[in-house]
């Protein structure tokens, strides 16, 4: 499977998912691009736990920047953009190993899945906190706060 086909599929899937969560039309194209960029980083990082973290960090930062530019809530972009990274394969593999009675593989796959999810959550939290604090600085300078 070539990487560009995966990225195109990622783009299409994100667009379809945005329709599912009724994302406003203006935000759909940019959300799909952000999602593909994030997934590209994840593929580059060889699908590791660190890959989850860095890809989500990129997605979080890009979403916050877009939110500032378009004067919309960052959640709007983030909800759909993060979906391709959610470790669905890990969950399925864990269940398959449990059903097959392969406890060792189930444990290691399950741990990796959980770590991936934590990495995503941590990265998005970091980007949000980063931007929430950046916003406050110019306000203080103006004295309008």
């Amino acid at each position, binding site marked *: 499977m070539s990487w560009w086909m*995966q990225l195109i599929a990622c783009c*299409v*899937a994100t667009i379809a998912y945005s*329709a*599912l969560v009724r994302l406003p039309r203006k935000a759909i194209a940019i959300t799909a691009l952000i999602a593909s960029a994030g997934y590209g980083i994840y593929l580059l990082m060889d699908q590791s736990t660190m890959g989850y973290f860095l890809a989500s960090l990129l997605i979080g930062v890009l979403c916050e920047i877009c939110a500032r530019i378009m004067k919309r809530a960052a959640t709007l972009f*983030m909800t759909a953009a*993060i979906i391709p990274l959610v470790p669905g394969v890990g*969950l399925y593999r864990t269940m398959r190993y449990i*059903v097959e009675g392969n406890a060792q593989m189930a444990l290691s796959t399950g741990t990796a899945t959980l770590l991936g999810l934590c990495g995503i*959550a941590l990265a998005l939290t970091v980007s949000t906190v980063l931007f929430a604090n950046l916003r406050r600085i110019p306000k203080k300078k103006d004295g309008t706060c």
Partner: protein
Amino acid sequence: MQTHNELGDEWMEKVSQVLDAVCLAAQIILECGGETYRAEDTVERMCKGFGVPKVDVLALPTGLMLTLAMGEEKSLTRIVRVHRRSIHLKKLDQCNGVSRKVASGEMNALEALEALEAIKAECKDRKWLMIGASALSASAFAVMLGGFWIEFFIALFCGAAVQFISVLMARHRMPGMISGLITGALTTLLALLGTLVFPGANVEPVISGSIMPLLPGLATTNGIRDTIRGDLVSGGARIMEAILCAIMLAAGIGLVLSMWRGVIG
């Protein structure tokens, strides 16, 4: 100085409009998948725009409490319960627009209330479009995770079925956890049946692709973010919801996989 008795009915009506408007705004945000701090923030901003001297608000994933302090001896409290939560970003966006207008003084309480009621009432979900979107997203994810044409077609059916059954269960007020179990089981069953029809199909991308839109990716994030912000109750509740949701999905998959092994393997 005037007290509320001298101001009388007119004052009372105006205050109740303010209260209705802020409660409705917060309720829409909580029902459409907004974070609790966004609901609290919106209430505070709107009250500032309406000229309410002091407001205290506590938003939880399942409800909202707020008190407006009007004048020295009078305060009004209201509790709003939030029963069903889904993601509806368009309503969230429109609600944000209203609160921004109120905060900048472009809208008064009555206009805001009317605008918010229009947002809440808007419910023109085109059912077939939703089913199509779900089918397309499932199949595109299946391709993304290493599938090809066969997997694409099987996932198309899985995605459509998931959306169809989700709408059906939401209409009959099935608890969210149980519907997670059922959708997980249904997806796995359809994918496994697909391998019977098309021998040689790979089940993994089909099942993973179909459950990805159902997994609580953002709920976990919101939960951890809330906890870090210090909203311990909503953070804990969200993390709990996310974990239970994932476990239920996994249980549904595991149930069908083990039954399938018993019958076929």
